């Protein structure tokens, strides 16, 4: 608006903010987490789903995820987005057979959906086309988004390792450095 004079454009959230946030939802915290635990068991992808895939294997998944981590860094997205991406990817692969040519497409679209859900300013479709070096067309990406959303039945409000991490880290009275370290290990 017009009344922005004398105001800093961006202000990093201070400790004060952190305290305020904790206080503000303390009442609900336990409930939120028990709810998440329930959902976690309900919505987690089966561990051995890869055995049902003919054309792809764990190794390819690992390579894909390494690449997704890089893309995630390049786009400067939030940690949550990455965890959600992997969750979407695994849940989709658990219910749908995918050939190796299209595995990267599934990965990049998982990232796109996760970013739309988590980010304030998600990247645009053309950014994903570019990042795949034009291996897939805009049309293919949008078509795949449709398929994934339908398969997962719009259930994206899922807990990821990171949701719990924050909580455990607080309980252990860790600072942000500890949080970063564990994030890396995960």
């Amino acid at each position, binding site marked *: *608006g*017009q*009344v922005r*004079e*004398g*105001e*800093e*454009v*961006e*202000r990093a*959230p*201070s400790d*004060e*903010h*952190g305290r*305020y*946030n*904790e*206080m*503000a*939802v303390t*009442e*609900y*915290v336990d*409930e*939120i987490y028990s*709810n*998440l635990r329930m959902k976690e068991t309900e919505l987690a992808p089966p561990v051995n789903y890869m055995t049902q895939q003919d054309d792809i294997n764990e190794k390819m998944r690992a390579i894909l995820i390494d690449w997704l981590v890089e893309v995630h860094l390049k786009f400067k997205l*939030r940690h949550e987005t990455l965890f959600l991406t992997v969750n979407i990817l695994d849940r989709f692969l658990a219910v749908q057979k995918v050939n190796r040519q299209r595995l990267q497409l599934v990965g990049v679209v998982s990232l*796109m*959906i996760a970013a*739309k*859900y988590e980010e*304030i300013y*998600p990247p*645009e*479709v*053309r950014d994903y086309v570019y990042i795949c070096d034009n291996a897939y067309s*805009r*049309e293919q*990406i*949008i078509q795949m*988004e*449709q398929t994934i*959303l*339908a398969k997962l*039945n*719009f*259930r*994206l*409000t899922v807990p990821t390792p990171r*949701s719990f991490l*924050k*909580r455990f880290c*607080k309980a252990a009275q860790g600072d942000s450095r500890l949080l970063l370290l564990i994030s890396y290990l995960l």
Partner: protein
Amino acid sequence: MVVKCESRVSGKVMVVKRIKKMPSVSGDASDEDEAGADQGFPVRYLREACLLRACNHPNVMKLEFVTYHEGQIELFSEFVGLNVEDYISSLSDEYFTRNKQKHEWVLQLGRYFMKQVLKGIDYCHSIGILLRDVKPRNFLISSDGTLKLTGFVLARFSLLPEEPLTQQVVTLSYRAPEIILGGTYPVYTAPVDIWSAGCTFAEMITGRTLFEGDSEIGQLLKIFKLLGTPSDCNKSFCFEVPSYIELLPQWQPQSLSERLEGLCDEGVDLLSRMLLYHPCSRITARDALKHPYFQGDHSLMKT
């Protein structure tokens, strides 16, 4: 576009929200012209669909299913009647002051609805959903008098938001001061929904919007005019506020009971707790439901 429909399978009456077909992918949408190009499933509806799918509560509108074929999105939800905003504007002035009996009816109904408003918000907060757009228009009244919360386009799943969120949330008239004052990336959480609920409450009782500003600063002025200009702003808001706030006129708090004529003392007390400046002192939905205002039997009088 919203249409009413009936399921051929279950006979259930539902409402379909059809989202405009996006421009076709092929043809004129070149790479340079990204602004108008197809971005796939729109972000706002993606969040709305996913969050509504995660909810299961009598006071939250049920999203039955979503279809998405060839760019055409349809959200199928349970059928509910008119919204609270329409309900309020359907009542004549008579109901709010002139006719004592009719006013009494409005007050009773206000309490009845408010309890459900808070139940819906309480549920969402308990599963970690921040609504960010609580207002009369987003509460639908079903034929049996149940209130259903809807309008999840701006909502997000956010437990303990460490990252700042966007400022572009909540319809201005219902926007909490910490969002207005928080700068480009304010940090806020559940109490913003309570502020909006307080404004909704007052609107149901008086028939008028409580704070109707035409700009952010105008909104702030309306708020301060009624609730008083805080003498020590940094203390009142728990974060550093922009310096222009010191230049604003110093108003004394006005009496809420005068503004909300006819509302009982408990009701005024509850409202004042919902409209506290400091987000941490503001009452939570859970505590609000335990407030004396809602104690006792308040089933609706036959009219």
